[in-house]
């Protein structure tokens, strides 16, 4: 795995894929490789990087749309948006705290991982904002799907397939997102001392209110000294002043709420977004569990089989981050047994390569969906060139 190809144009990218296809050479597909530790260790013989496909190709603030070549640093996109008071709505997680990566993630990597953060509960995931892609498929063909307008139902939505496919279906060359204005101000209500079940109830009360909660997380003891439950609202100043008081009154049954604002609040939400609470100790494995919020606390209760673990909740309880002993299967069996019948699923985000090679990193699929998934892979990448085995063995 020494050869690294860094095409500088989409045409070169397509040529590189065609060459690899002719040579039967499986490729590790990446941007800057900040998330290369996620997934099963791919069986690739060379690396194809989009890092030199860089630059913003389209930005129309009044149309709420931005497009960029896949290798564009996320930081460059966020800086351009910030200059116009706008943002990527889905608040993409930065995995560097967890994975101890250096360099910066690319926008293509954000799309390939469907990386979303706390605001996912209000404005959708990365896949909801991603409206257009260009990519090279496993035949070396350049394919476009979606476009630069936010209402578009023309043909099959392959954009959604590319989001979260971890580079296994095609190599993205360009991505287009719909965006939103940054709110004028924000406030975070903090409740203290709630157990997990009670905290998720409080978050549900906030999310089920008309007051537009855009962040809903719970940090149990072990993350914070005292359990802390967070609800964020964003908007114009008079609206925030009003909603803050209404929410405080609504949440009274759960205790008196403190308010956090400004940089302190922003920093706390950054840590929630990046699961930074679980970054240390570095020798622990980290799991990401997606589940209906009301089922989350009892799922966590069923984890007693794990001798030692820490967890916190985002998405109103619907996203549970868990740190476990990085030994054996890193808790895979215990977590998945506890998830059985809930409709939830688990992804192993951080673990030594030998564990990721042996355990199911992504949730195993039921047979009918496994068949469809194999078919989708074949339809886009017939020779299994791209990140083979990264998500599932044989795919």
């Amino acid at each position, binding site marked *: 795995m020494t050869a690294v190809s860094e095409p500088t144009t989409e045409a070169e990218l397509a040529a590189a894929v065609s060459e690899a296809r002719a040579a039967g050479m499986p490729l590790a597909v990446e941007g800057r490789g900040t998330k290369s530790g996620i997934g099963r260790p791919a069986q690739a013989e060379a690396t194809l990087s989009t890092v030199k496909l860089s630059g913003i190709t389209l930005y129309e603030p009044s149309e709420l749309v931005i497009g960029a070549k896949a290798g564009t640093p996320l930081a460059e996109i966020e800086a351009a948006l910030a200059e116009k008071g706008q943002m990527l709505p889905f608040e993409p997680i930065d995995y560097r705290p967890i994975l101890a990566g250096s360099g910066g993630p690319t926008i293509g990597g954000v799309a390939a991982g469907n990386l979303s953060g706390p605001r996912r509960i209000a404005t959708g995931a990365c896949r909801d904002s991603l409206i257009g892609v260009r990519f090279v498929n496993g035949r070396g063909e350049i*394919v476009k799907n979606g*476009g630069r307008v936010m209402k578009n139902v023309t043909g099959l939505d392959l954009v959604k*397939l590319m989001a979260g496919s971890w580079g296994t279906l095609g190599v993205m060359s360009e991505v287009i997102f719909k965006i939103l204005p940054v709110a004028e101000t924000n406030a975070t209500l903090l409740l203290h001392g709630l157990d997990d079940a009670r905290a998720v109830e409080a978050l549900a009360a906030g999310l*089920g209110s008309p007051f537009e909660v855009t962040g809903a997380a719970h940090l149990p003891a072990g993350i914070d000294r005292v359990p802390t439950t967070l609800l964020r609202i964003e908007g114009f100043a008079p609206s925030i002043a009003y909603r803050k008081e209404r929410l405080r009154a609504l949440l009274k049954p759960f205790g008196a709420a403190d308010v956090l604002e400004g940089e302190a609040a922003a920093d706390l939400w950054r840590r929630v977004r990046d699961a930074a609470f679980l970054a240390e100790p570095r020798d622990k494995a980290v799991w990401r569990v997606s589940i209906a919020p009301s089922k989350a606390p009892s799922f966590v209760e069923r984890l007693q089989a794990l001798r030692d673990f820490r967890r916190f909740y985002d998405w109103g309880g619907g996203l549970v981050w868990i740190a476990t002993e990085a030994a054996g299967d890193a808790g895979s069996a215990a977590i998945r047994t506890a998830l059985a019948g809930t409709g939830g699923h688990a992804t192993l985000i951080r673990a030594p390569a030998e564990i990721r090679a042996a355990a199911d990193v992504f949730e195993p699929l039921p047979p009918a969906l496994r068949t469809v998934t194999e078919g989708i892979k074949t339809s886009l990448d017939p020779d299994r060139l791209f990140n083979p085995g990264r998500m599932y063995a044989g795919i």
Partner: protein
Amino acid sequence: MGIAFPTPDEGILARREAITAGLARLVPPGGLVTAEDERRAFETDAFTAYRRMPLAVVLPSTTEEVAAIMRFCHEHGVKVVPRGAGTSLAGGAIPQEDAVVLGVSKMNRVLDVNFKDRTMRVEAGITNLAISNAVMAEGFFYAPDPSSQLACTIAGNIGMNSGGAHCLKYGVTTNNVLGVKMVTVDGTVVEIGGDALDAPGYDLLGLVVGSEGQLGIVTEATVRILRAAEGARPVLFGFETSEQAGAAVAAIIGAGIIPVAMEFMDKPAIEICEAFAHAGYPLDVEALLIIEVEGSDAEMDFTLGRIVEIAKKHGVKTVKESKSAMETAAIWKGRKSAFGATGRVADYICMDGTIPTGRLPEVLRRIDEIVKGYGLRVANVFHAGDGNLHPLVLYDVNDPDQAHKAEEAGNDILRLCVEVGGCLTGEHGVGIEKRDLMNVQFDPQDLDQQMRVRGVFDRAWLLNPAKVFPLDRRITA
């Protein structure tokens, strides 16, 4: 009229009786429609210029029945055209002579409401509005609100990835559905997604939504429900030019304001809708924006204050706020019945292209030129925030020449949408209507890739086979 249908399979037509007899064994009495006069109700949808009599119509009541029907049709090589309420404006539910129509309208129950997780599980034949009505008393609603929401089903909404007037803030169907139960072409029942915010593996749900019934028959859906805002207030802004209206829209968004809806009407549309709904639309302006904001009274006052300030800078001529729930209802009735109201004054075809909003004044001018060039008239209503246009090309259905010209004008308008960086369809779907224009928007390798993905689900082209992809070049792998 110019849209071709495939030549019916003589072998299937010859076996019609055996096929209907086989289907009759799979559904309870009343679940199979064979009489010609009863089948006629299913020969078209809301794209009424085209119609074909289906082989038979089957109306199952359960997922198991759907699975049995699909197994049977798959075994016998019979094509299946899925149908919700038949409100497609793109001909998405129009059958063909050698196909069975599978309608899901009998499957219309609410299965589960979960206010804590803000989700709801429904059968796919439930109407869009019935979903919201089921949770309205608790203050919740299902967000996408197509104009046909009284009649259209969630099955059809999923098929077409339907939008509505409020998707600027709340998104379209794909952003509001969490899971589906789907029967594949060979009768296998699969669960895709569920009640969590994301699902493992590839985003198959995102692929299924908007796939126009080509990947399977959706029989159940889990949707997100939202708590309604404390209040909502639409305001009418009249402008002397569409350029001013368009610039105001851009400036509102530029000021960091995302209203829940921003709807545009031109003068012909204003006149038609006002005559129908008596909504108090100003008749002395060239362009009207309906801008709706949400929140408490004070919040709405604040946001509207900012919007009015911006509108004034862009030369707004009239500003009229809704003063009561009745006025609000009338304002929306006028907009949502735009198509119906237009139907009272002329026949029309409704286009659905999307454009980058910055190109709005130019596109409106060119639409006017295109339609005038064919000697016809046009009324424009559209979702201004997202650039989704609905030009209504008016014509006389009894005049074949006019009908042909209307179709040509419509096609020219869609080519224009693609030319300026937009797309053929924003929320109605491709169906048969825009099928032959797909080559305008996509290169061959783009369509080939889509068809290869389609082929994963339906290798033999049995499911809604005459839709979306041009007939002359069909591949499966």
